[in-house]
């Protein structure tokens, strides 16, 4: 690793020198080494084990307040020369109507628990065995389990941000995500269950637990009833609540709001959710799934309140969108790939300009114990899984999700039985407004690459059965 970082530093230094020689006003190099190992499980087997090691650099340049960007995976001197020219060419017609400059050096805080040597050095063969433990645990839970499919992704990244203002920010981290989907069969009855989690260290990786929980959910759904379409009191378990956090996070990005989802564009300072809900972004949280000392522009991380007791306090900013709205960056620059045909692996990407988004968002825990929320629900639903969730009208907030599995009827504080596949159809803002209970503990939950620390919440929503 040491020689790799030396290579990245060398390439970054060369780039800034080339940019200076070409008389560019400012330059910023974001260098990445991103390793991903994926073990996919299907039909109770290891289906494929696949790895990627991506090394490259994204370069932003400013000349006469014109901003350009380009990236390459080739760090040879010849390629870096070409890269500076390409970045300059993309900037030629991109004169910014506001004053823009890259970030200045600041003191970088420390974050603990985001890099684990054991996870970074995990041999691929061992990762394959660990992934398969999910299948074994699921099959061992019940002889009704007929099929399992899932994934283990292990990520190890190292990044270096250098700019002509003297910012030099190194960042390294490890990450895993693990999920299993189990199928149970009993005669003609078929039911699915799932579980997923993520973490930053090997000691947090407990594949047997994931396998067992997925199997439990699958078996619990074998005897299910059809739901009657109605407006219900709904307890959203950790996984669906993490998806709500994911949507809310997109909506407070000035870029995403301006381009695609304008639902909250004019709502800063307004009450948009129940008093019970406070959304915090804390990239300094020890071992947080999105924690890091700096953002992807080299700005030091800081904790901030986005939604305070239901009132939208602020959007989150990187330096670019901050400059557009005459605000300072809030340290929320994230380099996610932004084009089809460009890799979008977990971990770090160098081939896109930063996007401002919350980095480690969570709902502040409430006062309710998880069991109390259930006990004090007279009549309602427990929703443990969202599938194919969409904001079908990003202006109005129409929201839909298929309740594919893990759906239960609740009566007088008890789960009284599983329900067949249904669909939630409501408005996201109404769902947020109707939250009347938030649990007191955060759990890492999510699916398909998106994870958050989340409590469970209780709200109201319209739910209909589907064939």
């Amino acid at each position, binding site marked *: 690793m040491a020689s790799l970082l030396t290579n990245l530093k060398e390439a970054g230094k060369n780039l800034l020198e080339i940019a200076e020689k070409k008389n560019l006003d400012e330059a910023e190099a974001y260098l990445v080494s991103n390793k991903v190992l994926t*073990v*996919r*499980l*299907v*039909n109770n*087997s*290891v*289906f494929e*084990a*696949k*790895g990627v090691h*991506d*090394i*490259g650099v994204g370069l932003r340049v400013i000349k006469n307040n014109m*901003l350009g*960007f*380009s*990236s*390459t*995976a*080739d760090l040879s001197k010849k*390629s870096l020369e070409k890269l500076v020219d390409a970045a300059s*060419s*993309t900037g*030629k*017609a*991109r004169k910014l*109507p506001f004053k823009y400059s890259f970030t200045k050096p600041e003191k970088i805080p420390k974050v603990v628990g985001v890099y684990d040597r054991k996870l970074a050095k995990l041999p*691929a*063969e061992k990762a*394959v*065995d660990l992934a398969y433990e999910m*299948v074994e645990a699921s099959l061992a839970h019940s002889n009704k389990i007929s099929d399992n499919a899932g*994934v283990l*992704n292990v990520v190890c990244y190292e990044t270096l941000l250098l700019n002509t203002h003297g910012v030099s920010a190194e960042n390294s981290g490890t990450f895993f995500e693990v999920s299993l989907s189990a*199928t149970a069969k009993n005669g003609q009855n078929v039911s699915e269950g*799932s579980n997923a989690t993520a973490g930053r260290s090997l000691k947090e990786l407990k594949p047997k637990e994931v396998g067992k929980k997925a199997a439990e959910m699958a078996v619990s759904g074998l005897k299910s009833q059809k739901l009657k379409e109605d407006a219900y009191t709904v307890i959203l378990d950790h996984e669906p609540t993490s998806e709500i956090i994911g949507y809310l996070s997109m909506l407070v990005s000035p870029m995403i709001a*301006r*381009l695609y989802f*304008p639902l909250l564009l004019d709502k800063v300072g307004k009450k948009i959710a129940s008093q019970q809900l406070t959304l915090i972004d804390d990239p300094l949280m020890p071992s947080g799934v999105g924690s890091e000392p700096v953002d992807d522009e080299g700005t030091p991380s800081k904790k901030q309140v986005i939604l305070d007791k239901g009132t939208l306090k602020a959007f989150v900013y990187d330096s670019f969108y901050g400059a557009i709205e005459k605000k300072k960056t809030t340290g929320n620059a994230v380099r996610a790939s*932004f*084009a*089809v*045909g*460009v*890799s*979008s*692996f977990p971990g770090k990407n160098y*081939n*896109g300009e930063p996007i401002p988004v919350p980095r480690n968002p969570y709902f502040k825990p409430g006062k309710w114990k998880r069991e109390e929320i259930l006990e004090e629900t007279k009549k309602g639903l427990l929703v443990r899984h969202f599938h*194919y969730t*969409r904001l*079908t*009208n990003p*202006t109005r907030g129409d929201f*839909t999700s*298929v309740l594919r599995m893990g759906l239960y009827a609740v009566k007088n504080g008890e789960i009284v039985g599983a329900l067949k*596949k249904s*669909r939630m159809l409501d408005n996201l803002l109404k769902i947020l407004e109707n939250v009347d209970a938030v649990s007191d503990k955060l759990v890492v939950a999510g699916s398909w690459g998106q994870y958050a620390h989340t409590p469970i919440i209780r709200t109201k929503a319209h739910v209909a059965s589907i*064939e």
Partner: protein
Amino acid sequence: MDKDLALFAVDQASKLGADYADARLEDHYNELIIVANGKVQRGVINRKSGIGIRTLVDGAWGFQSTTDLTKKGIRQAVEIAYKVAKASSKHVQTPVKLAPANSYKTSYKTKVKTDLENLAFEDKLKQIVSWEKTLHTSKKIVRGLTEYTGIKIDKVFASSEGANINFSNSLVWISLKADSTQGDLTQSYEKTIGHSGGYEIFHRNNMEEIASEVGRKAESLLSAKAAKMERDAKIILDNDYIALLVHEIIGHPSEADRVLGREAAWAGTTWWAGKIGEKIGSDYLTAYDDPTIPGTLGYYLYDDEGVKARRKVLVEKGVLIGHMHSRETAAIFGVEPNAGMRAITFEYIPLIRMSNTFFKEGDWKKEEMIEETKHGYLVSCMKHPSIDDKRYNWTISAQEAYEIKNGELTTHLRDVALTSTAPKFFKSVDAVSEKVEILPLPGCGKGDPMQALYVGNGGPFIRGTATILGVK
């Protein structure tokens, strides 16, 4: 790019003892320009070269990619691909077998008139800014958005069975979107233009006129009436709406890995698993997947396993005929492989993907379909899908619709969404128009890590029944 490196990689894998190996050596050039409300949000050029090596060892797959194109770097990647396959083989219940396929040695290119790199980025950016400006046909247009993508890929595929295929591809598309507002009402309209080829598509089309039409449509929706709930309404779906419908309820469920339950943990499975040969729709319903159509986003002649592409018949006269296959799933189903495997870059292992999936034409003129509808709706242009995990229950919204009364288009409708089940809709189809149009769908997602791939989808106008959902 030294093209022999792909052969070097598969030789190395064979030397290690892999039962089968293939390599994709690729050189990528990508452009991205996003303009919103007169401001350039993104102006990007990306370049990336690398190799992805897939190995089959004792019945299990391994894969590793690298951007280090030295022989040492490739050798290391091959070793990892071999090692992880070997480790996986301990946990495989049914060892992978590949259906036989011919090994081709050939070279082909997408027809390009204006190469992306022969035009100054600055000039393209200026044009895209200008088209965004044109979206603002009046003050009612509060948001305009243009998103342009240009991709060039040089690819070498080599396999341990002797295949060696070179493919130079070029793809271009642009989405134009306008949001309009009046009082509390906000509406939007969007159109995507794209093809496999060069920048000439923007010279062939009158982009200013298209952008202005998008703006006018967004405005006109402000005076349209909100759709009302109507169960089992007679609907005529235009090519654009059909493109998303065929994608979601014919294309995805036809992927053999989904049929086998291999995508169960992600996008889901397929309701028609085990129903090949069964009648699932009306006689009017025939659907294909065909990568061999030049100019489409799903164009290729050999897939990422080196299998020669051909038209796949998925549904014929309402009978489920077959699926899209890899060599592995073809062996399981006992059929010939049909070139369904693609990966977005060398960094990803190939998956079974759509190429161009579309409904076959019928013999109706679309005007006749409308004239012979007493009460119904002409539903136009795709918006948002929400489909269940088995691709059975579907809800897809449309950008606009017109009520049909006694064979004539009458009231203009907004906020239209249709819902039905796949078999119910398929069985309801009673008229199909004579002209097929295949449209670009650039962001089809599948896999873990997710691969967002460009495909073509479409068909003729189709008449059937579905429930219209009102605004909640």
